[in-house]
C-alpha cells in the first residue's frame, strides 16, 4: 500500500463526520458561552463581595465572608464529574431536566461560578489599599469604589481570569456532554472510546486544541489592549 492509500480512509472518515463535528463544536461553544455568562453574572459579584466584606475592607461583613468562603471552598473541592451527579435534584428543580443542553448548563454554572468568584477575588485583592483609601477620602461610595477602582484597575487581569474560566469550562463541558449535553467531548467519547475510532478522536482533539488556543490568544490580546 502507498502512503496516500493509508491516509485516504482517515480523510474520508473525517469528511463523513464533518456534520457531526460541526454540530458538536457548535454545542460546545454554546455550552461554554451560556455557562460562562451565567457563571460570570453570579461569580463576579460574589468575588467582589468576598473582597469587600473581608475584615478591614470597605463593607466589612464578617459572617457573610466566612460563610461564603466556606461554601466556595466546599464546591471547589468537589470534582466536576461527582458534582454533576450530586446536584441532579437541584438541576431538575431549576431546569426541569438533567439531560440535554439545559441539564448540562446547571452543573457547569455551579462548577464555574465559584471558580470565577476566586479569580475575581484574587484579581481585586491586587489593588493597592492606598488607592482605595484615596477614593474613600474623596467621598466615593462603596459602589463607586467597586466600579471605578476595583473592577476598572483589574479589568485586564479579569479578562485573563475569564479566559482561564472559559478554558476550564471546555474541559468540564466535555464531561457534561456525556450525560446528553452533546458537544465535542461527547463526540470524542462516543466514536473514539466506545467505537474504537481513533481517527475521529484525533480530529476532535485537534478541534479542542484549536479552540483552547484561540480562546487563550483572544483573551491575551484583549487583556493586553485593556492594560493601559
Amino acid at each position, binding site marked *: 500500500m502507498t502512503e496516500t492509500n493509508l491516509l485516504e480512509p482517515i480523510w474520508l472518515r473525517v469528511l463523513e463526520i464533518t456534520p457531526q463535528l460541526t454540530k458538536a463544536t457548535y454545542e460546545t461553544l454554546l455550552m461554554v458561552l451560556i455557562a460562562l455568562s451565567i457563571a460570570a453574572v453570579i461569580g463576579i459579584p460574589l468575588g467582589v463581595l468576598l473582597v469587600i466584606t473581608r475584615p478591614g475592607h470597605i463593607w466589612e461583613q464578617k459572617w457573610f465572608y466566612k460563610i461564603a468562603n466556606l461554601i466556595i471552598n466546599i464546591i471547589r473541592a468537589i470534582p466536576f464529574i461527582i458534582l454533576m451527579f450530586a446536584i441532579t435534584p437541584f438541576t431538575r428543580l431549576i431546569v426541569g431536566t438533567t439531560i440535554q443542553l439545559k441539564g448540562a448548563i446547571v452543573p457547569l454554572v455551579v462548577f464555574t461560578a465559584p471558580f470565577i468568584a476566586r479569580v475575581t477575588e484574587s484579581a481585586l485583592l491586587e489593588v*493597592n489599599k*492606598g*488607592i482605595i*483609601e*484615596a*477614593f*474613600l*477620602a*474623596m*467621598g*466615593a*461610595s462603596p459602589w*463607586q469604589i467597586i466600579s*471605578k*477602582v476595583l473592577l*476598572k*484597575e483589574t*479589568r*485586564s487581569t479579569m479578562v485573563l481570569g475569564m479566559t482561564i474560566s472559559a478554558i476550564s469550562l471546555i474541559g468540564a463541558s466535555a464531561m457534561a456532554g456525556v450525560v446528553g449535553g452533546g458537544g465535542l467531548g461527547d463526540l470524542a467519547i462516543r466514536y473514539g472510546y466506545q467505537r474504537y475510532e481513533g481517527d475521529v478522536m484525533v480530529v476532535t482533539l485537534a478541534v479542542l486544541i484549536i479552540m483552547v488556543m484561540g480562546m487563550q490568544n483572544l483573551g491575551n490580546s484583549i487583556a493586553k489592549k*485593556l*492594560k*493601559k
Partner: protein
Amino acid sequence: MIEITNLYKTYQSNEGNVEALKGVNLKVEKGEIFGVIGFSGAGKSSLIRCVNMLEKPTEGSVRVNELEMTKLTKHKLREARKKIGMIFQHFNLLETCTVFENIAVALELSHIPKASINEKVNNLLNIVGLEDKKNNFPSQLSGGQKQRVAIARALANDIDILLCDEATSALDPQTTEAILELLLDINRKFKITILLITHEMHVIKKICDKVAVIEDGVIIEEDTVLNTFTKPKTQTTRNFIKSIMEDELSESVLKKLRTKKENNKILRLTFIGGSASQPVLAIIAKELPLWPNILCGNIIQIKNQTLGRLIIELTGDCQSIDEGIKILKDHNVITEVLNYD
C-alpha cells in the same frame, strides 16, 4: 477650619492595644498652613487620618468647618469628604488610567456632566503644570509629576481643606521644593487651608505658618513657626531645628575657647527680619571695649521671614560684656548666653 478636641485613638491588635493618640488638641484656622512634625510612630498619620475619618477616633471630637465629623452618617460623611482633599506619600493614582482620567474620576464621583469635566480637568492640569502629560500613564511619570496629578485630583471638587500625609517624603530635595511651592501657591490662590504632617523640619520651615510637635501621641509644643524656631520649648523640637540649622559649636572650637585666658562669654544671637540688617556687632565693638568674634553663623528663610543666627565670642571686661548684651537686646536681637564649660 479644623478643631480637634481631646482626641484619642487606640488600635486593637492581637499583640495588644496601641495608643497612637492620647488626648490631642489642635486648632487649624481658615487659610492657614499648619504642620505637624514628629518622628516615626509618633502618631502623625493617625492624627491626620482622623480628620477625614479614614481612621475612626476612639474618643474625642473632630470639627471641620463646624461639622462634627465623628457623628456624621455615611452619606453625610461622603459629602463632607468631597470638600476635604487628601494627598499621600505614595500618590495612590489609578495605574491603568491616564493623567486626564485620574483627575476626571474625582469629578465623576460627584456626577459632574461630561462637558464640564473636560474643561475643569484642563484647568486643573494647567494649575499643576501638566498640560503636556494629560495622556500619559502614571508609570510614565516621575514622582513629582505623580504628586502633581494627585494634587489636581484632590483639588477637583473645590475643596476647602487639603490634608497632606507625608506628601513629599518619597521625593528628592529638588522635587520636594517644587511641590512645596505648588502647595504654597494653592494655599494663596484658592485660600485652601492645609494641614500637613511630616518628619522633615525643612517642610515646616518652607511653607507652614504654624507647627505642632507630636511625640508619643501627644502634642508637646505648638506655636507659630517663627516662635518655634526662636524659642523652642522641648528637646525634641530643638533636635528638629538642629536638623536644618547647625547651631552648636564643634568640639575643636570649644577646646580652643576653653584654653583662652581672656574674660569672654559665648552668645547665641538670633536676628529676625529687620534686625538682621543692622550692623549691631559693629556698634557694640565701636561703643565698648569689646571684641566680638563670630564662631558660627546661619541664615535661613522661614516662609516669608529671614532668620539669622550667630554664635559669637565676646571678649572684654565683665561690665562691658553685660552692657554689650543690653545693646544687643535693645536692637531686638534675641540673645542667649551659652555655657560651654
